[in-house]
C-alpha cells in the first residue's frame, strides 16, 4: 500500500516537470507582453517533433546525442518564438486587448499543417533516453530511470529561472515589466528587445518541455491542443506571471491526476465513483476551486491596471434611421436569397446566422460588459442540450423544446456567472473556461442522459419547418431578432450601466450602480441568447454532441468577435460571416486548409488591427458615408 502511494507520488512529480516548463514559458510571456499565447502548445509540439528529428540526427544511442538533440530542439523552438514575435506580434501590440490572441490562434493552424507537411501524419514514437533506458527498484516496484531525471529537471529549471530573474539585470527588467509594463518603457529600456528576449525564453521553455517528453510522449499532431489547455490551467492556478506559482500548480495538478488514477474506483454509498474517469476534468475542477477561493491564483498578485495601452472605445453610434434602414436592407437581401441561391447557400446562411447570434452574445460580454469569456460555448452547448433533451426526454413538440434552449443557457450562465463576475481579466476568462470544461465533462460522461461522447441524434424540426426555405426564414427571424434585441440592450440604460462598470468601476459604484450585479445579469442575458443560438443549431443539424460546448467552439466564437472587431457593435456579425464562409470555402477545396485559413486570418490581423468592421467603419467615416465622431 505504502509502496503504491510512494510510486504514484513519484509519477506525479515526473508528470509535473514538463508541465511546469511549458507553463513557466507561457507565464513569462503573458506577464511581460500580456499576450495570451494560444500557440504555446504548438511550440511544445514543435519541441517534441524537433527533438525526435534531432536526436535521430545526433545519434539516439549516445548520451550526448540524446541530450544534445533535446537542447538543440528547445533552442530551435526558442528561435521560432523570436521569429513569431518579430514577424507577427510586434506589429499588433497596440491593437485592442486580446487581439493578439487571434494572431496566435492563426499560428496554431499554420504550425499544425506545417508539422503535418514536414513530419507526416503517423505518430512518431521517440527513442528511450540514452543511458536512462531502464528502471530502478523502489520499494519493490520498478520505476523508470528517465522519470527520475525528469523529477530533477523541474526544480533545476526553477532554480535557474530564479537566478535569471533575481540575479541579472535582464531578469530585473522582466520582473519590473511584469509589474508595470509602461513604467519600464518610460525608463528608456529598449522594450522591443526585451519583448523579443522574453519570447525567446518562453518559447525555449515550451520547446524544452516538449523535447524532454520525447521518451514518454509520441510526437503527434494533437499535442498542441492537449497541452495548451493544461498549460493555461497551471499558469492560472499558480498565478499569472509567477514562476514559483506555476511550479506549485504543476505539482498540484500532476499529483491530483496521479492519485485519481491510483485510487481508481471507490464505492460511496453503494454507487461506484470512478476517480480514474475524473482525470478528464480534475485540473479544471482544481482551477475553479482555486479561482473562487483565491481570485489571483495561488501565488499571483492583483494586476496593476493597464494605462494607455489600448485604444479607448469611441462612443456608441446611435441606432438612428440610417441604421434601421441598413438593417432593413440586409433583411431584404437575405429574404431574396431563396429566390436566387441554391439550397446549400441557405444552409450556409443558417449557420452564419446562428454563429452571428452566438458571436454577438459573446461580444455583449467582451465589449460592453468588459468580461472576456474563454468558455462561452458552454451556454451555446447547454442550449443545444436543453432543446434536445426537452424534445427527446420530455417529448415536447419542437417549438416548445426550442424554448428550453435559452432557458438552459440562461440558467447555466446564472449559476456560473455568479462566480465569474467576482473576478476580472484573464482570471475571469479562465474561470469561464473551467466551468465550460466541467459542464462539458459531465455531458461527455453522462451516457444515460446526454448520450455521452456520441451525443444525441434525431433532433429535426417540426413538419411545417422541415422545408429548407421555411426553416431558413424561421432561423433568420430568431437570430436577427436576438441580435437586434441585444443591440437595443446595449443602447438601453442596462447596456449603458454595463459599459459604465467596464469604463470605471469606481465611478459606477459612486453613482449607485451595483457593478457586479449588472455584470451578473449581463452574463445571464448573454448566456440566454447563446442558448437560443444553440437550440437553433441543434435543430438545423439534427444532432448534437459534446463538441457544441467544447473549447474549440469557444475559441471559434472568440475568433469571430476579434476578427470582426471587438470595438464595433456589428463586428461580431461580420466576423462570424467571414470566418464561417472562409472555413467552408477553404476547407472544401484545399488539402492544407488549416494553414490557408490561418494565413488568411494572419493577413486580416496584420492589415486590420481593429477588425473587419472597425476597418470598414474607418473607411466609411473617411469617405463620408458615416458621421464622423465629434473628436
Amino acid at each position: 500500500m505504502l509502496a503504491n502511494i510512494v510510486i504514484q507520488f513519484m509519477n506525479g512529480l515526473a508528470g509535473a516537470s514538463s508541465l511546469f516548463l511549458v507553463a513557466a514559458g507561457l507565464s513569462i510571456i503573458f506577464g511581460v507582453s500580456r499576450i495570451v499565447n494560444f500557440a504555446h502548445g504548438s511550440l511544445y509540439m514543435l519541441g517534441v517533433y524537433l527533438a525526435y528529428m534531432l536526436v535521430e540526427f545526433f545519434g539516439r544511442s549516445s548520451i550526448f546525442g540524446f541530450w544534445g538533440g533535446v537542447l538543440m530542439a528547445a533552442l530551435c523552438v526558442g528561435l521560432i518564438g523570436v521569429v513569431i514575435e518579430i514577424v507577427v506580434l510586434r506589429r499588433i501590440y497596440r491593437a485592442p486587448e486580446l487581439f493578439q490572441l487571434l494572431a496566435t490562434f492563426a499560428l496554431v493552424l499554420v504550425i499544425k499543417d506545417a508539422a503535418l507537411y514536414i513530419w507526416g501524419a503517423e505518430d512518431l514514437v521517440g527513442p528511450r533516453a540514452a543511458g536512462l533506458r531502464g528502471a530502478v527498484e523502489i520499494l519493490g516496484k520498478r520505476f523508470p530511470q528517465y522519470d527520475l531525471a525528469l523529477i530533477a529537471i523541474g526544480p533545476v529549471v526553477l532554480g535557474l529561472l530564479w537566478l535569471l530573474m533575481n540575479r541579472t539585470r535582464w531578469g530585473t527588467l522582466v520582473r519590473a515589466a511584469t509589474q508595470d509594463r509602461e513604467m519600464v518603457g518610460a525608463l528608456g529600456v529598449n522594450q522591443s528587445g526585451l519583448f523579443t528576449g522574453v519570447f525567446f525564453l518562453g518559447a525555449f521553455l515550451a520547446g524544452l518541455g516538449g523535447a524532454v517528453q520525447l521518451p514518454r510522449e509520441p510526437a503527434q499532431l494533437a499535442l498542441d491542443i492537449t497541452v495548451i489547455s493544461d498549460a493555461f490551467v497551471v499558469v492560472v492556478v499558480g498565478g499569472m506571471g509567477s514562476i514559483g506559482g506555476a511550479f506549485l500548480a504543476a505539482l498540484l495538478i500532476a499529483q491530483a491526476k496521479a492519485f485519481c488514477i491510483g485510487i481508481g474506483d471507490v464505492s460511496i454509498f453503494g454507487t461506484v465513483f470512478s476517480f480514474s474517469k475524473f482525470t478528464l476534468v480534475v485540473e479544471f475542477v482544481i482551477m475553479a476551486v482555486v479561482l473562487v477561493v483565491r481570485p489571483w491564483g495561488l501565488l499571483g498578485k492583483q494586476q496593476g491596471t493597464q494605462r494607455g495601452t489600448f485604444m479607448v472605445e469611441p462612443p456608441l453610434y446611435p441606432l438612428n434611421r440610417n441604421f434601421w434602414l441598413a438593417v432593413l436592407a440586409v433583411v431584404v437581401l437575405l429574404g431574396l436569397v431563396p429566390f436566387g441561391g441554391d439550397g446549400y447557400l441557405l444552409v450556409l446562411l443558417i449557420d452564419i446566422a446562428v454563429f452571428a447570434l452566438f458571436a454577438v452574445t459573446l461580444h455583449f460580454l467582451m465589449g460592453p460588459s468588459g468580461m472576456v469569456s474563454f468558455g462561452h460555448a458552454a451556454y451555446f452547448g447547454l442550449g443545444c442540450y436543453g432543446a434536445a433533451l426537452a424534445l427527446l426526454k420530455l417529448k415536447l413538440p419542437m417549438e416548445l423544446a426550442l424554448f428550453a434552449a435559452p432557458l438552459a443557457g440562461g440558467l447555466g450562465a446564472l449559476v456560473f456567472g455568479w462566480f465569474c463576475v467576482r473576478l476580472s481579466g484573464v482570471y475571469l476568462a479562465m474561470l469561464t473556461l473551467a466551468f465550460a470544461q466541467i459542464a462539458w465533462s459531465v455531458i461527455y460522461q453522462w451516457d444515460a442522459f446526454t448520450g455521452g461522447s456520441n451525443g444525441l441524434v434525431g433532433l429535426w424540426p417540426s413538419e411545417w419547418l422541415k422545408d429548407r426555405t421555411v426553416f431558413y426564414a424561421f432561423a433568420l427571424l430568431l437570430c436577427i431578432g436576438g441580435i437586434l434585441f441585444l443591440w437595443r440592450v446595449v443602447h438601453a440604460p442596462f447596456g449603458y450601466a454595463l459599459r459604465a462598470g467596464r469604463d470605471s468601476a469606481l465611478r459606477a459604484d459612486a453613482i449607485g450602480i451595483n457593478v457586479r450585479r449588472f455584470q451578473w445579469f449581463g452574463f445571464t442575458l448573454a448566456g440566454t441568447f447563446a442558448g437560443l443560438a444553440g437550440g437553433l443549431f441543434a435543430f438545423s443539424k439534427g444532432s448534437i454532441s459534446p463538441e457544441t460546448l467544447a473549447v474549440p467552439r469557444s475559441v471559434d466564437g472568440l475568433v469571430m468577435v476579434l476578427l470582426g472587431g471587438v470595438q464595433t457593435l456589428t463586428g461580431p456579425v461580420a466576423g462570424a460571416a467571414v470566418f464561417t464562409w472562409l472555413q467552408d470555402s477553404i476547407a472544401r477545396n484545399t488539402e492544407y486548409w488549416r494553414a490557408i485559413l490561418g494565413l488568411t486570418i494572419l493577413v486580416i490581423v496584420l492589415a486590420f488591427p481593429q477588425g473587419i468592421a472597425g476597418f470598414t467603419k474607418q473607411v466609411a467615416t473617411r469617405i463620408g458615408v458615416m458621421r464622423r465622431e465629434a473628436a
Partner: protein
Amino acid sequence: MTVLSVSNLSKAFGGVKAVQDVAFSVAAGELLALIGPNGAGKSTCFNMLNGQLRPDSGIVNLLGRSLVGMKPRDIWRLGVGRTFQITATFNSMTVRENIQMALLSHHNALLSLWKSANEMYLDEAMVLLDRVGMADQSERPCGILAYGDIKRVELAIALANQPKLLLMDEPTAGMAPNERVNLMALTARLARQDNIAVLFTEHDMDVVFAQADRIIVLNRGRLIAEGSPMEVRANPEVQAVYLGSGVTYAGGH
C-alpha cells in the same frame, strides 16, 4: 442646518492610528475644507465618509441617518455626490452620456432593456452641463477631454442626484493654478445656489482660503484646529505643522 455630522471617528491600520477621534459637521450650503500635511489622515477620513473604508469606531450621520457600514453606492443613493482625486469618468461615452448615466441611476431607470438611453433625461443632462459650463462640449467623447474639463464633468455627475452633500477628494489636483480657483469658485456658487454641503480636501492653500467657509485641520490623525480661514491661519499649532512640514501656506505653490 447640519447635513453631515461626524464624531469620535477612528481608524487604525495594523496598530498605526490613521484617524483618531475626529469630530466635525458640515451645514447645508457650507464649504468645509479638510486640510493637513501628507499622511495626516485626510484620505482615510474621507474614505470612511464615502463608504470605501469602515471606521473602527465613531458616528457618521447624514441628516440624522448613520452611514457607517454602508456601501458607496448606497451612500450615493442617500444624496452624497463624489469627485475623485484621479478623475474617473466613463471614457467610451460622450460628456452628455456621462451625465445621463448618473441621472439614469438617480431615477432608478437602469434596468430598462429597451429604451434608448441616449435620449433619456437629455434636457436634465444639458441643464447640468450648462451649469458647469460644459454644454458646448456635450457631444465629445469623455476620453479626449482636457483635464480641467473632465473635472467639470465630474462635478456635473456629482450634482445629478441632487445631492445634499458633496465629497470632493483633492478636486483641483493636477490642474493649472488659475483653473483651480475657477473650479472651486464654480463649486461654491453651485453649492450655495442648491444649498449643498461641501466637504473637500485640498493641497492648494489659495483655493482653500479663497473658497472655504470653514476649515478643519488634521495632523497625525487628530483634529488640531477648526474655524474660519482667518482663525485657522492665525492658529499657532497649524502654523507649526505647516512650517514643520516645510510648506508655507501663505503663498501657495
